[in-house]
């Protein structure tokens, strides 16, 4: 038996979902050792391995670094296709994946576009193009 304490993570995956659903906050971690910022839950840094993560609130605006328009949707998105699935580089660091219900074809989104996180009762982290209003749903 060891008496060494387990590293304690500031929040759980459930907290992460509550964060964006109830507080409109994207929670994340910063590694004080190497500076990595991530939205993904963990107990230690995926880059340097140091188990000393600090909880932070991630930025709400960012740049699209990769995306696809899904014609065949996932299980929770049956009535929403086509929609964009995006990887967004957030201002202040860190990337998150999310979806954009109002983007239905490749003419309306490009890599490098600025997008903004919006709270929604629908599942998933939702983004809209910068300047656009929040989701109607």
């Amino acid at each position, binding site marked *: 038996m060891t008496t060494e304490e387990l590293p304690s993570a500031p929040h759980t*995956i459930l907290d*992460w*979902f509550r964060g964006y659903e109830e507080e409109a906050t994207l929670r994340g971690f910063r590694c004080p050792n190497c500076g990595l910022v*991530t*939205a*993904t*839950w963990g107990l230690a840094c*995926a880059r340097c391995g140091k188990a000393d993560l600090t909880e932070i609130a991630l930025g709400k605006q960012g740049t699209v*670094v*990769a*995306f*696809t*328009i*899904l*014609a*065949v*949707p*996932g*299980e*929770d*998105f*049956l009535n*929403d296709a086509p*929609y964009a*699935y*995006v*990887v967004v580089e957030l201002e202040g660091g*860190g*990337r*998150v*994946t*999310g*979806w954009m219900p109002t983007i239905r074809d*490749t003419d309306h989104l490009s*890599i490098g576009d600025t997008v903004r996180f919006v709270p929604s009762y629908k*599942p*998933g*982290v939702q983004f809209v193009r910068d300047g656009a209003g929040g989701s109607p749903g």
Partner: protein
Amino acid sequence: MSVRETWIVGAASNRFGRMKESAREAATRVSLEAIRSAGLEPKDIGHTFVSNAFGIAEHQAHVGPLINGGLGIPDVPSATIESACSSSSAGLHEAIVHVGGGFEDAVLVVGAEKLSHLDTLAATSYFAIAADYPFETKNGATFPGLYATLASAYEHHYPTKPEMLGSVAIKAHANGARNPHAHFQKEISMDTYLGSPMIASPLRLYDCCPFSDGAAAVVVAAKEFVKKPALEPLVVRASVRTGSVTEMQDRPDLLGLPATRNAAAKAFRQAHLEPSQIDFLEVHDCFTIAELFALEDMGFFPKGTAGAASLDGVTVRDGKLPVNPSGGLKAKGHPVSATGASQVVEVFEQVNGLAGSRAVPKTETALTHNVGATGGSCSVHIFSRR
């Protein structure tokens, strides 16, 4: 590479596509066939590694002992190995470790999957749970969607004509048409490819592998155990497994798969070989873009050039570097847990002159490459003749 020289001495696959029987029955059947092809009997097997990642779709877990029971060897230990789409190549690695390390003389590796009784939505959902469920799937990702997202980053960085991805699909179908194990045994044209509907931009229907049922098995044995092999064995020159960050949001580089890069580099070091010494490859082409990633990440082509090489015909059956003579996941099919083992079946058949009209010109040294989901895990194996 190992303590003891380790061989692949037997291999078998059923026809991929739609199975009437269960994964358990199909796995047992191909296992017996693989063992017999090695000139062995089930009682010669000391351990089995069984993969059936989506066994839950048939309400069956712990299928290994059932397969062993069906083979008449219920007392032989079995372990289930799950590594998403690379499950049976992960099982193969475990078998090689067991035999090479002297723990067993002969080990069976078998992978089987049956999903055809599910509808497309259910099958898509099963595939999607191999991603990060809360951080990817719950945000709208599907399995094609994740590879399509990588493809968008790649195409943004390296100009990629649709015809380049199309050439990968056309080559796969041309090879599959000559493979009696293949799900799709029909050639397609560039017009058919370009006219197929977009599933997840920039990936069209014909960029995607099918949901397949299927089973494949190989027998791993120590050289000193097999005095007179029934067929020409494959000498295991390298057996490497790697891991990598699964989530796309945490990958600094979206232009390939780091797990492949690391696995190939280590495998070439282990085998004391270079990419130029490989005669043909079976690579993980669950989507056409994945074949370009594989070829570039393993060092066969500089980054951003595999698409042009494919369009130029370099990777066709009688090209300079034949890739996926079996038809690959794209045309042979992708019964998740059978895929890794089936890649070795193809190498075994090519080396033994059993590949018929899809035979490649040179079969001295071959490489198999199998990815788990979007690259959270990867296996690379290198084989050569005695």
